[in-house]
């Protein structure tokens, strides 16, 4: 029992990060109709910026304060993501507004390669570290409740906490602030939003910036755990089945979908993995999402699609 719960908690914690990245997908899709395949590359790009800025700042400060160096790096990387958002809006979205979904998807593939290319040119292509002082040692909890207690990875726990906090903040931002209201309006009906004077272009920059910040946070968390390297981009794409499961247009869907995928991955890894010879966590999420699609093609919380006849 204790072991099952331990696995479950591990899954929930990993899932929270998927939720966060999936939220990035959903925001962009809702507001601009773009399935942003470049989300993974954005994670890599942001993490690269963070790692190198932190290194440079630390060097410039004479290695005195890692915290300050990290803060500077975070702001710097945030500004870089703002620049990315601005460039994407100015030179891509604005030109391609009203194009087919497939065209826009291809364009985000292009953005993926551009970001990966520029990232490696500007920031280098080795493996870099991000050290934000994440605790690495696991702790034992609930020893009185379960025999043997529950082993919780502190790093994962803090990561999940940060992700949850960010998800919460974003939800508040969307539900409560005027800008959030404008974003929801754009997501609901472009034409109507334009007709009341909501500037679509500025909204797009904001949405891509938000997705960029999400990518930055995910990049820092994953980067500090796995090192900043090329494979970060693919780790982030593990959030893809989450959006399939949760529905492309649903914020709660992204959150719940992320948790389901996280838990599903961990449980299958531990309980089914040994039977099929391991490696299951790589494909399990997709199978889960596909099975799900058979029953609810619109996703968990997506609106039911009814064809007009």
């Amino acid at each position: 029992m204790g072991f099952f719960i331990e696995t479950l908690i591990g899954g929930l914690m990993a899932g929270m990060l998927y939720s966060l990245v999936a939220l990035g997908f959903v925001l962009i899709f809702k507001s601009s109709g773009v399935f942003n395949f470049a989300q993974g590359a954005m994670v890599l790009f942001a993490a690269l910026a963070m790692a190198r800025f932190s290194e440079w700042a630390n060097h410039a400060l004479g290695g005195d304060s890692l915290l300050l160096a990290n803060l500077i790096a975070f702001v710097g990387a945030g500004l870089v993501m703002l620049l990315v958002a601005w460039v994407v809006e100015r030179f891509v979205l604005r030109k391609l507004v009203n194009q087919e979904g497939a065209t826009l998807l291809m364009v985000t593939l292009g953005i993926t390669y551009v970001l990966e290319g520029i990232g490696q040119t500007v920031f280098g292509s080795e493996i870099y570290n991000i050290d934000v002082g994440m605790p690495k040692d696991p702790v034992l909890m609930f020893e009185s409740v379960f025999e043997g207690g529950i082993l919780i990875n502190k790093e994962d726990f803090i990561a999940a906490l940060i992700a949850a906090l960010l998800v919460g903040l974003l939800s508040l931002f969307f539900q409560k602030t005027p800008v959030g209201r404008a974003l929801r309006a754009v997501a609901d009906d472009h034409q109507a939003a334009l007709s009341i004077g909501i500037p679509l272009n500025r909204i797009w920059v904001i949405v891509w910036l938000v997705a960029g910040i999400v990518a930055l946070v995910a990049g820092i968390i994953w980067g500090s755990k796995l090192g900043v390297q090329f494979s970060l981009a693919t780790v982030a794409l593990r959030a893809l089945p989450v959006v399939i499961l949760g529905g492309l247009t649903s914020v709660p869907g992204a959150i719940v979908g992320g948790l389901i995928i996280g838990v599903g991955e961990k449980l299958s890894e531990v309980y089914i993995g040994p039977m099929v010879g391991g490696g299951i966590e790589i494909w399990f999420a997709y199978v889960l999402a596909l099975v799900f699609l058979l029953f609810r093609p619109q996703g968990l919380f997506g609106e039911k699609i009814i064809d007009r006849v």
Partner: protein
Amino acid sequence: MSRKIGDVILDLQNISLRFGGVKALTDISFNIREHEVRAIIGPNGAGKSSMLNVINGVYHPQDGKIFYRGAERKKMEPHMAASTGIARTFQNIGLFKGMSVLDNIMTGRTLKMKSNLLLQALWFGPARSEELAHRRKVEEIIDFLEIQHIRKTPVGRLPYGLQKRVDLGRALAMEPQILLLDEPMAGMNVEEKQDMCRFILDVNDQFGTTIVLIEHDMGVVMDISDRVVVLDYGKKIGDGLPDEVRSNPEVIRAYLGAGH
């Protein structure tokens, strides 16, 4: 008539609009005077909605000129038209379905919000008190349209007639100079139509808002409009006072021909 109709506020000259081979509008000229209720009528597919879409910058005509308050207007996008005081409602209702009535109408205040986007995003200080001021204005509109009881309801759940009313409310929240209404009474029963007529006339009367109205119900059109333009197959076939238009043989023919 107690209202004083003013000078020409919007002057459309020789407007032509094509979609590929389809000529939606052909060489159409007419003007709109300040404070008047100007109706655009015509059979389905005549180009009425296209005309509204040209006025608020959704469509860009291939030919023709538009003068707004005497100055020629450059190529216009809808959000720019909005910032020059042009508001609209939609034939197929363009409300934000997931949002409450109150939130929908609040979005109409977007252009009136002065504090900068960042403050708004952080929901900070001045942005907050400003929001409250806008909220009061919106509550006035809600009272005016008699929809207090559904303030918090998501608009997707409302019956069609009430959605049309909320659509009007959102446009009113912009405090527009010109209000474009695309079939605001379509699909309504008699009572709902009467209410809508009353609201439109009150807006026109109390705030002096210029109104451009597309409507199928001839009775309504004759009742509430000052002047009427008639379109048929993208061409203008009549323009004048309601009585003049009604007795225009070409108009009669178009309407009979279309089975009205």
